[in-house]
Each structure stands twice: as structure tokens, then as C-alpha cells.
């Protein structure tokens, strides 16, 4: 019974199949739609279709007072709202030439690094979840909860803080905040070792991510990829170091980059590993900042109605996802003429059509997870 099937290859018609992943798909981390052209199981072309969460943020800002914009920046990157607040406040302070009290800078750094840990925990947890590791996700969400508790203690909100204002922060640190943050760090440091044991050096996880979705540094720079995704490709570019703002010049920390430890430089595992290392660096920063936090006011002398002088400013800031930029044009009134936001996740997503081609659909999930996108910020 070993007759060969008589198939005339010239008669077999193969064609590309178009698959829609999303806009409601558990691995797209939001309402993202990926139009995937597949050749069998291999992705031949990929088109991200965005805009399902568009809320006219920039246009809306043209009708809001400068201080009223802050709660709307929260809603852009809702996983790392503190960074969005901070980036906006930084831009406004540069536009108005406000000198912020040193205590404010330290508070901002502390909450910013806590936020970076919280954001990376979500990124890494969901990355593992996409690949099939469920336990790390629940563990990471559990630890993130502690950070959210700290934030709630600080400003009453768990997700959308409206905490960092133009010229200061809304509340001073609560009495026991510093002690509790120290407790959290003491608790969290061994947790990171457990994550490594559970997920990072898991053989299955390495097989799924190492050498997958390699993002070469030149492509990353050409596409404007920033943040951990860029550093995963071995480019040492971190605004906290290279364009140091706030209290970062006074603090000691390293900028981890991908080295191709498990595969080649710029693969999914490297992007994951950079985030893992960044959490350790954040813990280091928080530890130093808590020790050297000065006393003082938590608000600079800012008029109640913020009216920046005529002019414009472009200010960039390192969020958990990359480089956020605010371009604000003021005509001297109490509402901006134009506010443009450069979204890091938008640029990071755009590179997916370049790096995911030729990989299988299951790898595409891993690549998408490793880019760590937030649709609230992409669509804004």
C-alpha cells in the first residue's frame, strides 16, 4: 500500500490567507487589530490597525485648562499613569521655567520607579501569560497590588492618579509611606529571584522567546523604538541617564541592555530580560531616594490658573514603555493652542511589521507581548 498520491503540483492552488487577530483578543493587550497575511502558519505580512480606542486626547486638550489636562494624561498610558503625569508636568515646568522643590523631585522619582516596577510586572506577567505561563502572571499581579496599595495610600487612586501636577505633587507623602515602601522593597527583592526561577530561566520559556523576533539596533533606531524594547537590542539609551531630569542625576543606577545571553541580541528574551533587570535597578533607585529624600514643600509657587508665557516646548521623558514627548504650544492663555503627544508604544508597535515577518503565528504572540504596548496610549 505504498502508492504515491498523484498530485500534479501545477494544479494545486495555494493562496495567502488573511487572518484578523483582534480587536478583541486576549494577547493583543487592548483593542488592537492585527491583519495577518499568512502562508500556511507563517506570517508573511502584518498590518496593525489601530484607532479603536481613539479619544481625541490632543484635540480635547485644546479645550482644557493646563491643570485640567493632567487627569487626561493618566488615561493615555493607564498602566503607568504616574509617568504620563510626570512627563506632562516636566514639559509644563520647562515651558514656564518653574524650579521645583527638591523634595518634589525625590517624591516623583520614588513614585516613578514604583510605577516602573508595577508597569513591568504587568508587561512581563502578560508576556508569560500569552506564551502559556499562567502562574507568573498571578504572582506578578499580586506584587503589583502592593504598589497600587502604596499609591492609593498616597493619592487615593489605584490606577489613574492625577498625582504629579505642574509645579509639584498633589499630596505630600503619608506618614508611614517611606517605611512601607522600604517594606515593599524588602519583600520584593527576593520575589524577583523567584520570578527568574519560575519564568526567566525556564527551558520552555527560553525556547519560545530566545532567537525569536530579533530586532536589530539599526531597525529599532530607524523606527523610533525606545525604552526597554530599544535597550533589548543593545542600544544604551535611557533618558534618565542621557538627558537626566528630576533627581536622577543624583542617583546611581545602571542602564541594562540586551546582550544576547540566551540567543542573539534583540530577541524577545532580551527584551524580557532588560525589563527584569530594570526592575532591579528601580529597586536600587528607590532605595537611594528613600534614604536621601529631603524635607520641604511639595508644591512650587505656581499661580492657581496656570498661564505659561507665549512659546512652545518639546519635552521628553522616559516612561516604562519608552520615550514620551509632549509638544505644547502656548499663546499665553490658560488653554494650550496645541498639544502633541509622542507615544512610545505607537512607535514600538510600528516595528512589528518589520520583525514579525517570517515567524509563525505563535511567535507573533510572543513578539507582540515582548513589545509591551498599551492601546490607550497608541490611540489616545
Amino acid at each position, binding site marked *: 500500500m505504498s502508492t504515491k498520491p498523484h498530485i500534479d503540483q501545477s494544479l494545486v492552488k495555494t493562496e495567502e490567507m488573511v487572518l484578523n487577530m483582534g480587536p478583541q483578543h486576549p494577547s493583543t493587550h487592548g483593542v488592537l487589530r492585527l491583519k495577518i497575511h499568512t502562508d500556511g502558519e507563517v506570517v508573511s505580512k502584518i498590518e496593525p490597525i489601530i484607532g479603536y480606542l481613539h479619544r481625541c486626547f490632543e484635540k480635547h486638550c485644546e479645550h*482644557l*485648562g493646563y*491643570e*485640567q*489636562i*493632567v*487627569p*487626561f494624561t*493618566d488615561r493615555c498610558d493607564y498602566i503607568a499613569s504616574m509617568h504620563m503625569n510626570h512627563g506632562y508636568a516636566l514639559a509644563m515646568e520647562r515651558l514656564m521655567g518653574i524650579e521645583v522643590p527638591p523634595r518634589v523631585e525625590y517624591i516623583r522619582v520614588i513614585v516613578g520607579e514604583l510605577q516602573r516596577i508595577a508597569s513591568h510586572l504587568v508587561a512581563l506577567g502578560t508576556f508569560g501569560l500569552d506564551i502559556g505561563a499562567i502562574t507568573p502572571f498571578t504572582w506578578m499581579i499580586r506584587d503589583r497590588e502592593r504598589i497600587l*496599595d502604596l499609591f*492609593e*495610600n*498616597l*493619592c*487615593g*487612586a489605584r490606577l*489613574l492618579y*492625577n498625582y504629579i501636577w505642574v509645579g509639584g505633587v*498633589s*499630596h*505630600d507623602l*503619608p*506618614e*508611614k509611606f517611606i517605611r*512601607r515602601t522600604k517594606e515593599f522593597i524588602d519583600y520584593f527583592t527576593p520575589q524577583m529571584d523567584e520570578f527568574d526561577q519560575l519564568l526567566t530561566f525556564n527551558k520552555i520559556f527560553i525556547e519560545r522567546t530566545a532567537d525569536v523576533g530579533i530586532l536589530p539596533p539599526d531597525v529599532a533606531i530607524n523606527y523610533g523604538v525606545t525604552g526597554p524594547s530599544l535597550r533589548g537590542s543593545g542600544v544604551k539609551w535611557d533618558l534618565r541617564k542621557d538627558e537626566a531630569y528630576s533627581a536622577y542625576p543624583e542617583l546611581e543606577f545602571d542602564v541594562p541592555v540586551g546582550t544576547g545571553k540566551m540567543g542573539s541580541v534583540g530577541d524577545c528574551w532580551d527584551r524580557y530580560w532588560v525589563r527584569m533587570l530594570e526592575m532591579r535597578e528601580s529597586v536600587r533607585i528607590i532605595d537611594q531616594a528613600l534614604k536621601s529624600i529631603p524635607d520641604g514643600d511639595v508644591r512650587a509657587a505656581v499661580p*492657581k490658573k496656570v498661564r505659561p508665557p507665549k512659546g512652545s516646548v518639546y519635552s521628553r521623558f522616559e516612561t516604562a514603555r519608552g520615550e514620551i514627548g509632549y509638544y505644547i504650544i502656548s499663546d499665553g492663555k490658560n488653554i494650550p493652542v496645541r498639544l502633541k503627544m509622542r507615544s512610545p508604544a505607537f512607535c514600538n508597535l510600528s516595528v512589528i511589521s518589520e520583525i514579525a515577518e517570517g515567524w509563525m503565528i505563535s511567535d507573533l504572540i510572543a513578539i507582540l507581548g515582548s513589545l509591551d504596548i498599551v492601546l490607550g496610549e497608541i490611540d489616545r
Partner: protein
Amino acid sequence: MSEYFANIFYGLKSFAEGLQLTMRHFRNRKDLVATLQYPHEKWPIEDRHIGFPLEEYNIIRSRLNVDIDDCIGCLQCERACPVDCIKIETIKPPKGSDFDCGITSNGTKMKMLVARFSIDMTECMFCNLCTFPCPEDCIYMVGGPNSSKHEIEYEYASRDRESLIFQFANPSESDVLAVGGENYLRAKAGLPPLAPEVPVKPVETVSTATEKPTPTAGEPDVKVLNGITDRMVRATAKKAFMAAARGGSDLAAIAKSIQAALEEAGKFTDEAKAVLDSLAVTQTPTPVTVNEVSSEAKPDIKTLNVLEDKMVRGMAKKIFMAESRGGKSASEMVDAILAGLKEADKLTPETEAVVRQLAPEVPVSTPKPSAPVTDFNVKVLNGIEDRMTRGLAKKAFMAAQREGKSASEIIQTVQTALSEADKLTDDVKTLLLSIGGDKA
């Protein structure tokens, strides 16, 4: 062979082990239950772990609350709100009004009445920006450090939107009227605002009008004096008018004082005299007409239902409606109906009797609108000091008023009632006489 059986044994064993575990959890389901059948079951609030002790929070973004007694209506929170979910409406008392808006707990004197303070919690985005500018700290998020003001409330989900729009201000209608909020009430009821030329003074309705027995019903209107052509004369007259009106004098007194002022200035021309006369003439009868309209027993169309013949009834009702729309009085109406029926040749004696029932009270009640005259009400008895006596007097007064007695009769009744109860002291007697003296 042995391997074959070993595999079977191993398969069965693992199967049994799995079932055993399931059964163990099944038996202990009471202890292991993790899902709470919300909202039928809830964690008790004090056991709920939301991080840290409530008082150690800077703030908890739970729900906005307003201590409306402290609100001065400065609108700062409304302006701070990025989503416009706070809506405040205030009414400023007119100049010279002695309406007391109150004092906040910080000791700030309130300058206006907050007629509406609503927060739409469906629109609120919990940014907390409204609580910062408040000068009186009266808008705040409940719970946390504000637990002493209002305990934490995080469960206020509802099935309808209305119950998520919190109305904090709820002033009484009389308060709104007292600060001149007539137009506010009208706008609320969907009515067009009153023309600004005719400012309705709320004095009539609220200020109880007992202390000043002036004929306030016809409000003295300075515009009457516009009839005077000479500017100088007009100005002098108006000045005198306003001074007199502020003093609370009635029209005759006002006219007199104007005349005096003009004579003094040597400006009392014939024209001014004519205008002053007209002032006295046109305005004095107004209270009378007002009384007539208000006190007249309104003819009721239902009276006509007694008419048996459908045709007749229809006709009578039609004329009735037409006449009442025309604002005719009851007696005029009766005449019109009777005439209409006569024309149609349907007027029987019974019909006439029924129709006349519309009006019979009218001729009786019109001559004595005295009882419900604006300033002769039960409040005049508030002058009686003894509570028992006052109560008795008021009771008798109301009973008599309901029977439609005239003022003097009412006073008589009150006097009798009090003397029966042996409470008729001299003070009361004088008071009653003073009231009755004016009116009878």
C-alpha cells in the same frame, strides 16, 4: 505482560487519586469557597482589606460629598472640574433684602443662596481636582481622612442614572422666593422668565405682611411719574416717591409727600398734580380688584352635570368654558348661559335653577372679601403671648374663616371661644379689638 498490567494499575490509581482530591474539596466546600455571590453576599465592611488603616490615607477617591450648609456658592469647584459634572446655581438676594443666607462653619458669611448643587457621579472621573480650590472645605471625597465628615462609601452602584446624580442643595421654595428666585422657579417648571420690567417683589408672599398694614397689594410704581414731562419736576417727584416708598408709606402718603416736595421746590405744576391724582386713583383700587378675583368662589363646571338633557348640558358647558376663558365673573357667566339657552329655546325652569347655582354664592361672597384679605390672616393672632390662648384663638379663627364669616364676625367668634375657656385676658381683648377695629 506485567508492564501492561502495571500501566493499567497506574492509570486507575491516578484516576482514583484525582477523584479523591476532588471529593475532598467537594466535602470541604464551605471552608474553601472563594467566590462570594455578590451582591447577595458581601464582605462585612470592617473586614475588607483595602491596604492600610483608613485614617492613614491622604485621601480615598470614593465619592464626592458636599456639606451644603458650608457652601458659599463660589463656583470654584465647578470651574475646576474637567468633565463639567458639577452644576451649581446660585441666587443672589436682591439689594436691601434682609434674607439671611447663613454662616459657614469657618465663619464666612454666605452672600447667596445655593439653589442647586448637583454632582453627576456617572460623569465624574475621580480626578479630585474639585476638592482643592474649595475655600470652605465643603466638597470632599468621603472616607479616609474625611471619615469624620462622612463615612466611606464605595458601593453606590445603581440601576438607574438618576440615583447617581446627587443633589446636595435642596432649598425650600419659600427660601428661593425670598431671595428673588421667581425666575429660577419658573425656569425649573419650564415657564418663560418674567419680563424684567415687572420685578415681582417677594415681599407679598413671604414677609408675612403683618407688621405693616400698608396696602402692599397694589405695589406703588414709580413709573406712573413718567407722565410728568418736565425733567426737573419728574426727578424731584421720583426722589420723593422713592424716599416715601422706602419708608413704607401707602400711596396716599406717598402722593402727599411728593406734593410737599414739589411745593417746596416751587414746581408743583398742574400737570404734576394731575399725575399725582392719577397715581392715587389708579393705584388705590388695585387691592380691591385683586381681592375680588382671589376671594371669589370659582364657578365649577361640574355644577352643570346635574342637567339631564345632553344637548342642554353640552351647550351650557360650552358657553361656560368660553366665558371662563374670557375671564368673566360667575354672575356674568350665568347671564350668558341663560341667554344662550334661551336663544336655543331650551331654557326650562329647572335648567335655570341649576345654572343659577353657579353664581348664588357670588353675590353673597363678593361684598365681603374681608376674611381672606391679604393681611387679615391667622398670623395676626401671633401677638398673643400665652401659648394656650393663642392656640385656642387660632383654632376658633380658622373654623370661623372656613365658614366664610367676615372679619368682625371672626373676631367675635374668637372672643366668644376664649371667654368660654376663661382665657379672655385684657391683653388679648385689646389685641382683638385692634385688629377688629381696622377691619370692621
